[in-house]
C-alpha cells in the first residue's frame, strides 16, 4: 500500500489519481497505523515551507516518519514542497527548520529576475544522472515546475538530476531510499507517470 501524507498542503488527489492511472491503489492519510503499514510513502506539497513544517509538527507524525523512513528504510518520495522539507532549513518567509533528512538549505532562486521570472513556472529540461532509477525510460526528460525556492544540498552527490533556470539547481535528489523531486510528476503527463512508476519499482536493498 502506498500512503500519500495528508498534511493540509496541496494536491493530494492529483497524486492519488496519477497512481490510479498506473494501476496502483493509494491511501491518503496521516494516521500512524497507515504509515506503519505503508510500503511506500509519498509527501506531496504546494505552499510555503514554514506552513508545511508547522502542519507536519501539529500532526505529530514526524517521529513515526523517521522510524519508518530513516530506520526501516521505507521508500519515500517528496514532491515539490515535500522534497524541500527534507532539508535542514528553509529560508522562505523566515528561517525554519526542516526534517533534516538531507543536509542542506532551501533558498530562493538567485537570478536576474528581469530575465528569469520568478516563480519558475512551466516545463523545463531535466538532466538526469546516467542510470538513475527514477528516470528509466523517460524520454524526453521535461517536467512541470512551479516554485520560487529550491533545495541546495550540502553533499552534491545526492543530486541525481539537475535543471537550469538562470542557475543550475537540483531537480531530483536521492539518498538511499529517500527521493525528492522538485517538479510535479503528477502534472507532467506521460513522463511524470513514469517517474512514479519507477519510484514504486525501487526495492530497498
Amino acid at each position: 500500500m502506498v500512503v500519500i501524507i495528508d498534511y493540509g498542503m496541496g494536491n493530494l488527489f492529483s497524486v492519488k489519481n496519477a497512481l490510479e492511472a498506473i494501476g496502483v491503489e493509494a491511501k491518503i492519510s496521516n494516521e500512524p497505523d497507515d504509515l506503519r503499514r505503508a510500503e511506500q510513502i509519498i509527501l506531496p506539497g504546494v505552499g510555503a515551507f514554514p506552513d508545511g513544517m508547522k502542519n507536519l509538527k501539529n500532526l505529530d507524525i514526524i517521529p513515526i516518519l523517521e522510524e519508518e523512513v530513516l530506520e526501516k528504510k521505507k521508500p519515500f518520495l517528496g514532491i515539490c514542497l515535500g522534497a524541500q522539507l527534507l532539508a535542514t532549513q528553509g529560508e522562505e518567509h523566515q528561517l525554519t527548520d526542516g526534517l533534516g533528512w538531507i543536509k542542506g538549505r532551501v533558498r530562493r532562486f538567485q537570478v536576474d529576475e528581469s530575465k528569469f521570472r520568478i516563480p519558475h513556472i512551466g516545463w523545463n529540461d531535466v538532466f538526469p544522472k546516467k542510470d538513475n532509477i527514477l528516470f528509466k525510460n523517460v524520454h524526453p526528460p521535461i517536467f512541470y515546475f512551479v516554485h520560487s525556492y529550491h533545495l541546495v544540498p550540502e553533499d552534491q552527490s545526492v543530486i541525481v538530476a539537475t535543471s537550469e533556470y538562470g542557475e543550475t539547481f537540483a531537480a531530483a535528489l536521492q539518498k538511499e531510499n529517500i527521493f525528492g523531486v522538485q517538479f510535479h510528476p503528477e502534472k507532467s503527463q506521460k513522463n511524470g507517470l513514469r517517474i512514479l512508476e519507477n519510484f514504486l519499482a525501487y526495492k530497498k536493498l
Partner: protein
Amino acid sequence: MGLESVIVISLMLKVRLIPVLLLKKGRMVKPIRFGEGGERDVGWPITTAQIYDSQDADELVFLDIEAGKQGRGFLLDTLEKVAEKCFVPVTAGGGVATLEDFRELLKAGADKVSINTAAMERPELIREAANKFGSQCVVVSIDVRETAPGHYEVFTSGGKNPTGLEVAVWAKQAAELGAGEILLTSIDKEGTMAGYDLELIKKVSDAVKIPVIANGGAGNRQHFVEAVNIGRASAVAASSVFHFSDSNLTQVKSYIFNAKVAIRPI
C-alpha cells in the same frame, strides 16, 4: 519526439501553450469580445480537456463565466472529473472572491486559482491567498480594453465595469501583492482570431517580473510566435483557434518549434 537527430533548441524553460475552456450552463462557450460579438457553443469541457491533454497541452485553464452557484458547481464537477484522467496543471477561476473559494477549487483539482474582479475590489485578497496557499497558486486575471490609442484600461465584472486603472499600474500592484502570474486578456481581441494585442502584452511583460500569460486574439500559428517574440509572453493562451480552425495543439506546437521558440516538442 525522441528521435536521435532531435535538435537541441536552447535547453531552458519552455513557453507554455494553454487552451482556455470557458464554462457556461453545462457546456463550453466561446464569446467574441466578451459577448459583444455573440457567443457559440464549443463543446463538452470534460472530453475536450482530455483531447487537449492527449495533444500535450502544457496547462489547462477553466473559467466559469456563468456566475452563481450553478456555475461554480459545474466548474467543481468538471475539475474533479478532469483530475481523474488528465495529469497536467490546471488553473481554475470565475467569480472567485474568498479564500474559501480558493480552497474549494484547489481541493477539486485545480493547481492554481485565478482571481479578477474580487482582487480589484479588495487587493489584499491577493496577499492573503499568496500567504495561505503560496504565490504560485495565485493567478491574477486582468481583462483590458484599449480605450484610447496606446491607453489600456482594466475592466472588471466580465468586461462590463471600467475601473479607470491603467493596466501596467494594476499589474505591478498585483505582482507586489504576491501574485504568481498574470493572465492578461484583451477584450477587444477576444474571439476575433485576428491576432493578439502585442503592444498590450509587451507593456505588461515589461512592467512586471512575474510570468505573463497572453490571452485573447490568437487565430493562427504565427500569432503565438509573435506573442512570445514581440510580446515577451511566458505563456500563450487561446480558445477560438482550437475550436474554429484546423489547428490542434500538436500542430501549433510543431509550428512554434519550427519557428525556433522553446516549446515542449510533440
